[in-house]
């Protein structure tokens, strides 16, 4: 202990104290403060960057989910639209078919009616021609009958030959 006290140099103590305090102040101002500030800045920067990356990842997930949802909706809408279109076309076809049927039946009916009419008219004309012919024949027959029986017969036959039933 005595040698310890003897070795203690007040001068050295004083020099050390002054130099150390100056060193602490100088280093504090020019080294430690800027260093610690920069380190902290960098650490918060890294932390922020990590946070941002995490946020971006989450956002991306959200976006993906949104996209999927939209896609599903779109698909459903498309399905619905297609279904509707098909229904409409089916209906259109059915309607068209019905209309066509109606029109054809009407046409057929009309045709039948006109045929009937034509037939009636033709029959009537035939009847009339037959009647006129008969009358003509009868007239000629009657005219010739009075002279010769044989001539009468020839006449009828000749007339009949001329008049072909048309």
């Amino acid at each position, binding site marked *: 202990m005595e040698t310890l006290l003897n070795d203690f140099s007040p001068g*050295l*103590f004083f020099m*050390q104290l002054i*130099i150390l305090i100056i060193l602490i102040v100088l*280093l504090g101002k020019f*080294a430690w403060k800027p260093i610690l500030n920069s380190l902290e800045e960098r650490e918060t920067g890294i932390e922020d960057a990590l946070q941002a990356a995490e946020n971006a990842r989450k956002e991306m997930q959200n976006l993906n989910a949104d996209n999927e949802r939209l896609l599903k909706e779109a698909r459903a809408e498309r399905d619905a639209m297609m279904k509707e279109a098909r229904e409409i076309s089916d209906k259109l076809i059915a309607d068209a078919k019905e209309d066509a049927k109606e029109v054809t039946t009407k046409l057929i009916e009309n045709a039948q009616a006109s045929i009937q009419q034509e037939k009636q008219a033709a029959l009537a004309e035939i009847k009339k021609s037959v009647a006129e012919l008969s009358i003509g024949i009868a007239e000629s027959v009657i005219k010739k009958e009075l002279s010769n029986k044989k001539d009468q017969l020839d006449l009828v036959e000749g007339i009949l030959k001329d008049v072909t039933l048309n």
Partner: protein
Amino acid sequence: MAFFSATIFASGIEKKVDNQKDGGQINTNSEVKAYIEHHLKDSHDFALFSYTSDQGERKHVGFPLPVILWTSKGLVTFMSSEFHHNDDGHVVVEKGGLKFAKIHSKIYELDNGAATVSFDETHHATNAHKTLDFSITKSVVGILLAGLLIFLGFSKLAKQYKTRKIPKGISRVLEPLVLYVRDEIAKPNIGEKKYRKFMPFLLTVFFFIWLLNLLGLTPLGFNVTGQIAVTVCLALLTMIIYITNGSKDFWAHTLWMPGVPYILRPVLAVIELVGFIIIKPFSLLVRLFANITAGHFVVMSLIALMITMKEAFGPVASTGMSLVLALFIMVIEILVAFLQAFIFTMLSSLFIGMAVEEHEHH
């Protein structure tokens, strides 16, 4: 240490001038011990090594340092070369009407009228007294060198952050050390909220002690952290810092411990106060001083094995043994250099943490 080993190699030269006790041949155990003790002390010269020339003259290689004294007649300065490397009071320097002599690395002012130093039988000067010695000694040079190196290194690191996020070069090595002190020493002991204020002190002290410990292992032979004055200064600063930053809770717990019978409280207060003001700083300063001094002592003793074991084992075996052992201890000392800096800073921050702690409830 280079000085020391160079002297040992030089001991083969037979010529010896006996007018000086230090230097020259060192052959006996007591001479080795005196030599080691001399080199553990602070020195007024910056000696690199010394040798004996062919003319039988002691040559010292190094440079003198300024001696600055506060004497009974005011400030006196001169260069240490005026003592001519004498360390036992035989060379008397006259300056400013006063006479000075250097005895065992201490400068004494001779009493009025005395021309030479006279000694009593225990080799204490009887007609001289110590002066206040503010000399730029070898330790002060070491402190300045370490301060300069630390300042250059870390201000460069600080500057690098202005232009880049990640430093390069030597600063890349320094950055993790700063982070280590912050994250492993300051934050866990002082706490996230309050550590910032104490970082300049802790970082400075950590790098100061570490660098000086390492410089002490170089052949320059500094023994700064083995100077009790230096460790006292460091420990005292720690104490001042934790005493002046003590929280209300800290003082309440120290001076009037709650939850203890009233009669015991003053006793506890005395014990706590003594603990904080004397025992804790004392443990800090002695631990650092003793570890570094012991390290230097062991390394130098192992080198000295070369001489002390020469007779028993022969020169080759003793030199080899000394080399291997000294190398081994040197490696351990490099670890100790870091460890002591770490422990000092760790305990400082622990004590500061105790003082600034605030309790949630009692």
